[in-house]
């Protein structure tokens, strides 16, 4: 494989966004994800190749390490930032259709809840696995999920909540989405949520960590 892609995979995994970023210290002054992506394009590597052979496998490694408690939120976010830097370079190719995504993933923290770090981690990991992601933010009512699915037919929806008191809002939101758009696939996640609750409220899937969502989505897409 192209040496640049090997390097890109490594800097994304280690969380180096660009040459200027101080982390990680052992890569100080070296090219980051942004520079390496530009160089790969200049070297004639296809955008699809960059996504599939560097970014996706890098984020897959990161997701697995996070699920195994080997790395923690700050490292995961740094990797996500590095991936974001690469994605910014690739953005025109997504817009032009030169890169094919696996589907559209709509995510938001449910009404009544302002916590967004967990939601953001899932959004970044899913984006890093080759999906296009629409982040609706926090305190999102049912109507906004429904509207987003109508704008992106066939999109998968994910609801996040951090509190036991706001988790209960998921039930109504799932019911509203299913009433209006019965074929919509709805994930739920967040600290207080579990599989039993998922079944109880009629959501389609629960996973305990971001990597679980990615693996589930990849099975759905394949």
């Amino acid at each position: 494989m192209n040496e640049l892609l090997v390097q890109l995979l490594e800097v994304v995994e280690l969380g180096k966004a660009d040459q200027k970023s101080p982390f990680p210290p052992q890569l100080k002054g070296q090219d980051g994800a942004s520079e390496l992506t530009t160089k790969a394009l200049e070297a004639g590597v296809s955008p699809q190749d960059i996504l599939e052979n560097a970014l996706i496998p890098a984020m897959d490694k990161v997701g697995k390490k996070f699920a195994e408690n080997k790395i923690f939120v700050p490292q995961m976010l740094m990797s996500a930032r590095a991936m974001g830097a690469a994605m910014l370079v690739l953005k025109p190719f997504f817009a032009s259709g030169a890169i094919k995504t696996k589907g559209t993933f709509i995510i938001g923290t449910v009404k009544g809840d302002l916590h967004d770090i967990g939601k953001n981690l899932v959004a970044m990991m899913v984006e890093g696995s080759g999906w296009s992601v629409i982040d609706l933010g926090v305190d999102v009512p049912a109507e906004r999920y429904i509207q987003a699915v109508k704008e992106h037919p066939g999109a998968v929806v994910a609801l996040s909540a951090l509190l036991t008191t706001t988790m209960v809002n998921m039930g109504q939101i799932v019911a509203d989405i299913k009433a209006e758009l019965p074929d919509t696939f709805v994930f739920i996640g967040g600290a207080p949520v579990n599989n039993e609750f998922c079944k109880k409220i009629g959501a389609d899937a629960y996973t305990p960590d971001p990597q679980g969502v990615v693996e589930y989505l990849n099975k759905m897409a394949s």
Partner: protein
Amino acid sequence: MKKHNIHLQPLGKTLTVNDQTPLIDVLHEYGIEFPCGGKGTCGKCKVKLVAGEIETTDIHRQKLALLGLGAEWRLACYSTCTSDITLEIDQYNHLILADESEFEYSPQRGFGVAVDLGTTTLVAQLIDLATAKVLAVETMLNPQVKFGADLISRIQACIDGNEHELKRLIRFNIGTMIELLLVKHNVPLHKIAIVGNTAMHHIFSGFDVSPLSQYPFDTPHLHAITFTTSELDWNFEVVGDITFFPSIGSFVGSDILAGIAATGMHKNDTYCALIDLGTNGEIVVGNKNQLICASTAAGPAFEGTNISMGMRATTGAVSSFKLVENKLIANVIGNVSAKGICGSALVDAIALLRKQDLLGIFGEINSGESTIELIKGISLTQKDINEFQLAKAAIAAGLEILCQSLKIQLADIQSIYIAGGFGNYINSSHLVETGMIELPVTKIHKMGNTALIGAKMFLFQDANTIDEIRSKTIHINLESHPNFQDIYVDKMLF
């Protein structure tokens, strides 16, 4: 109805209960806590069945297996009493800090009671209003802990229909504490001052807590409220008012109002900060012109809830660590063998592990192992270290965001007061070394239970002082700061 005896070891107590009594109803008084609210996930209510039978359901056996507990163990939250049993419990003998601080006051006639109604602990002091001396102290666990350790689980319990029970329990226990004070000193009571966070205020007063359960957290009941003894079902007399003092915001209550009064920061020219390292991690920053406050989700790790060998500062808890010849030496509360570590020792352990270069800047255990042994039998897992990072980042990010809101630098803060249950055991240098407080250690002052000190001061003050503090203080929501995530995540690093 059939009755059974429950023998508690090593307390030597025997309780007589009705058939089918859930253990959760009778054991919390003996120091058994239910941090997860009886969901069987935390294992903190485990009891050893020494004699007799407690039948287990499939789900109970599953939970025990998940927690790695053998056949002799039961989770009190899943157990009911159906025969005579003997249990060994070691979660007893709680040390709840009772303060003895001094302050300025104008002498009055009679006697008063100051009450700190904490999420976890209750403290009541009987005060001679002529001398401001503490005549007697009573401490208890908040009886609502059987509904969960954190505020959200209490609020949830109220929403689920237990609001009358939570109200009854807390009114009953505070009444009992005051009766016990009066048993020690049979004096006429003139007034009672109660402080607590907004959820405790609502539950005690019988207000609807549901506005506190979700954004935008607007409740119409932040005001002070007075009661008569008959309203509270209390069987003693009080000449004057029984007052629950007003809250500052939906998650910052009169305990923090009292804390501000105790530090005097509302009268200072220079900027000061108050951090309550309790369950809700409230922070206040400001000076005589303006005070800004917020609550952070810092508490669970400091209270031991999310730490695998975590426990509160009670018998058997390691309260501090020090490094002697590159080895950790533990100080254990009650001079018994160490059973777990409390918040202050957690801070010590992290600071010292960093010093020994055993933890990296991301909090990773450098050896690559998933646990790290501190002393024989006591270890921290990678997950515990991460939990600590979340807690310390919540405090550090809170401080930074409050300073930004005041348009000052962190370094502009001249004094930082540390309050709360484990605040007194804490090693200030280690707070600095872990990055929780990014200021010179000389600026850190340990204040003990500032809520209680303030409540005592409120017995002597008129409403003006309280109105003055409230009018200067605003409450913000840290999560709604646009850079909250970046700041919070940066502060997780060492």
